[in-house]
């Protein structure tokens, strides 16, 4: 059992990491907060649990040469990402024009459109950007259930607040589903809506497509792509990232083509590989890497969460 002071210490740390520092940083000019985070990232205490797990996994997988540099960049990115959660809804069109740069294929003017992104980089800026293009994406999220109520008060509050902020950034409320998110997305795309999903999720679906991420064998679900093709939606893959040197946020769109869902999953893996090769520390899922890469870990059974 945790001693009370350890519990309080941890709760205080969560309060600072999740609320106080990110909100305070939004009050600074972006260049200053970026520099502040760079300086703070030298302290190894930030997001201790996630960083420790991520380091253990990348070390076991042998995908990173300089572990200390990886950990520092991961801390820097987590600091930026937690701030962005609050910053995105607080900044308007002028900030978007100054700091967010979009590349790649032009976007359609109306739905049905299915955007499929990754957990690399900070994806928050995708939302205000597509909103500025008059495409307001529906985001399907799992109902906030009993698992969340078992987390700390700070964690619970943070997730609830983050959902509200994401909904504000997307320009429409989140769609909460208890059962199959896929059906909800299919329904909305059939009605000509715009939907959004992240597809680099662990999966145990039998029809998952074998791919390689940073040379490591894994598999990704194809059901989102199937739904997109079946409903006749335009499918756009996207990646987003923050250039930690200039502070610019970059969103890259690539229209998926190739005809089959399998080919599209491979294109998605190509896009993710580009991001991972550039900066492995940008991926949020090193802390759950055993769910993707079974060796040398024993992967736990997890429900399919793609779509």
């Amino acid at each position, binding site marked *: 059992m945790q001693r009370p002071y350890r519990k309080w210490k941890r709760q205080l740390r969560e309060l600072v990491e999740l609320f106080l520092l990110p909100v305070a940083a939004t009050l600074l000019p972006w260049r200053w907060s970026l520099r502040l985070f760079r300086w703070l990232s030298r302290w190894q205490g930030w997001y201790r649990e996630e960083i420790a797990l991520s380091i253990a996994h990348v070390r076991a997988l*042998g*995908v990173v*040469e300089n572990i200390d540099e990886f950990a520092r960049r991961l801390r820097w990115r987590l600091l930026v990402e937690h701030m962005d959660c609050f910053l995105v809804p607080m900044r308007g069109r002028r900030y978007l024009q100054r700091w967010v*740069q979009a*590349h*790649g294929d032009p976007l359609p003017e109306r739905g049905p459109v299915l955007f499929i992104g990754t957990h690399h980089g900070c994806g928050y800026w995708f939302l205000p950007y597509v909103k500025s293009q008059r495409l307001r994406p529906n985001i399907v999220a799992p109902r906030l259930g009993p698992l969340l109520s078992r987390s700390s008060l700070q964690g619970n509050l943070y997730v609830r607040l983050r959902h509200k902020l994401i909904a504000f950034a997307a320009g429409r409320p989140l769609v909460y589903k208890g059962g199959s998110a896929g059906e909800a997305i299919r329904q909305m795309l059939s009605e000509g809506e715009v939907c959004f999903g992240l597809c680099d999720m662990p999966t145990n679906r039998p029809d998952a497509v074998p791919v*390689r991420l*940073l*040379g490591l064998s894994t598999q990704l679900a194809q059901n989102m792509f199937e739904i997109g093709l079946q409903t006749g939606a335009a499918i756009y893959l996207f*990646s987003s*990232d923050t*250039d930690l040197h200039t502070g610019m946020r*970059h*969103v*890259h769109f*690539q229209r998926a083509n190739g005809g089959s869902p399998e080919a599209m999953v*491979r*294109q998605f893996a*190509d*896009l993710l*590989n*580009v*991001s991972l*090769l*550039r900066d492995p520390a940008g991926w949020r899922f090193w802390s759950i890497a055993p769910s993707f890469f079974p060796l040398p870990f024993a992967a736990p059974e997890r429900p399919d969460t793609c779509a």
Partner: protein
Amino acid sequence: MRVILTYHATRLQRLTREGSDLLSLHADLEWLADQGIAVMSLDELLADSRRAGVAITFDDGSRLDGFPHLHPGLGLLPSMLQVLTHAKRRLPGLCVSNFVIASPQARTVLATHLRAEFGASLMDSDWWTSAHASGLMQLENHSWDHNHPLLQHSVQRDNQRGNFLVIDSAEDAEAEIAVASDVIGHATGRRPRYFAYPFGDVSPYLRDVWLPTRGAAIGLRAAFSTEPRAIHPDDTAWALPRFVCGRDWVSDKQLAAIIQHARLSGV
């Protein structure tokens, strides 16, 4: 079986394996490691005709080879060097020969023409020393100015540009090859040992006359065309063949066919 695979970092149409040499290089190196095929430097591959393996070369030497890059159309991209760094854990013998253009003026002209497609500073040489120091890349000679058609003036005596077959005199060869070796050697501290013919154009004069007599004196050991086949023991050292990514293969299956054919033909 001795095979040389060549990549151009500037082949960047889309962020897919088929559409970019960047992702092709990443996938090909993983495939070669899976197959247990030895990947080695040109020095090692050419040291012994009985040696079996693959060497990797890059052509044109752009900044995309050495530094992560912001591409106007494709966003933030990793460098080819980052791909090599990642692959090195499975391919300990990996060392790439990168054929660079020596003339700063020629590189500036080329970068200016390609600015819209690749952004500024595409052909800067600021990555040369760090790439060389990485131990993963050796900088070699791709001529003084590529005798490129985009240049107003080349060092070719009649200012004929657009192919390398017109480099057919000692004077032109000195200006295009010997001077380039001096400049690259001065910049990196290591004289180039290899020369790649721009456009893959093998000038008979260079292959049969100038390089055999003058090559060793300026530090060169071999020269490379882009003839798509494996190296044969009877090949002259001054026009060794290479396969080119995008032209000769874009998938594991096609690369496997190249390797298989080289093995079956016993060269």
